[in-house]
């Protein structure tokens, strides 16, 4: 099957309704699963006021494309969309969008989770959190590494 993969990395916000409309227009698909990651107000017990995401231009896009292709080899999918923002974002703002379509729900749910788990451990993004005690770089979590490992066959 020719998969339709779209990867976008930019500072601008995205509109979930627009992305859903693009994903949901094929009648061969019975399932559309979306995930949106947002800036939340706390991390490791500290209040967060905003978040700045740094990335490695070029490598980021190629890693996101690679993990999308891996997913398409593993599950019967039609479309995959990954959008990730960089720059400074305020509380509640959207950071990342993952959208997957398939004939059936199981493949779409599994792929969506696989993609966010792999993105979190492989795509070169770094979060700098600003809060009441100044700015600090977010530490990578062992639980994210564990989540990605569970997908190894």
């Amino acid at each position, binding site marked *: 099957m020719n998969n339709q993969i779209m990867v976008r990395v930019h500072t601008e916000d995205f509109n979930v309704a627009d992305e859903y409309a693009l994903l949901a227009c094929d009648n061969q698909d019975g399932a559309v699963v979306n995930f949106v*990651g947002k800036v939340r107000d706390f991390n490791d017990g500290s209040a967060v006021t905003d978040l700045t*995401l*740094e*990335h*490695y231009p*070029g*490598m980021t896009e*190629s890693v996101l494309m690679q993990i999308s292709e891996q997913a398409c080899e593993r599950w019967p999918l039609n479309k995959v969309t990954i959008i*990730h923002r960089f720059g400074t974002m305020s509380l509640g703002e959207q*950071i*990342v969008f993952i959208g997957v379509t398939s004939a059936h729900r199981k493949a779409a749910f599994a792929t969506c989770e696989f993609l*966010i788990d792999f*993105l*979190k*451990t*492989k*795509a*070169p*993004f*770094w*979060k*700098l959190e600003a809060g009441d005690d100044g700015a600090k*770089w*977010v*530490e*990578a979590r062992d639980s*994210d590494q564990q989540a990605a490992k569970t997908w190894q066959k």
Partner: protein
Amino acid sequence: MIQVLFFAQIRELLGTAKVEHCADNIDTAETLRVALAATDDKWEKVLTSDKLLVAINQTMSQWDSPVNDGDEVAFFPPVTGG
């Protein structure tokens, strides 16, 4: 020359995002790291962190991966996107 890039805390701690390094006597990511760490005490401390990761030509690599003249090598901490 080898183009060397630094990201996130590594960039901030070193105070630079990019340097060029002569490719002479560099054959792996590890030899490049050791050569850069010899710059001064600060570089030594930052570049010997056991959490440091390396990408060669925008692909995640191992410390014994080969590095050649003209390559782009990036050093950065564990990733935290999503």
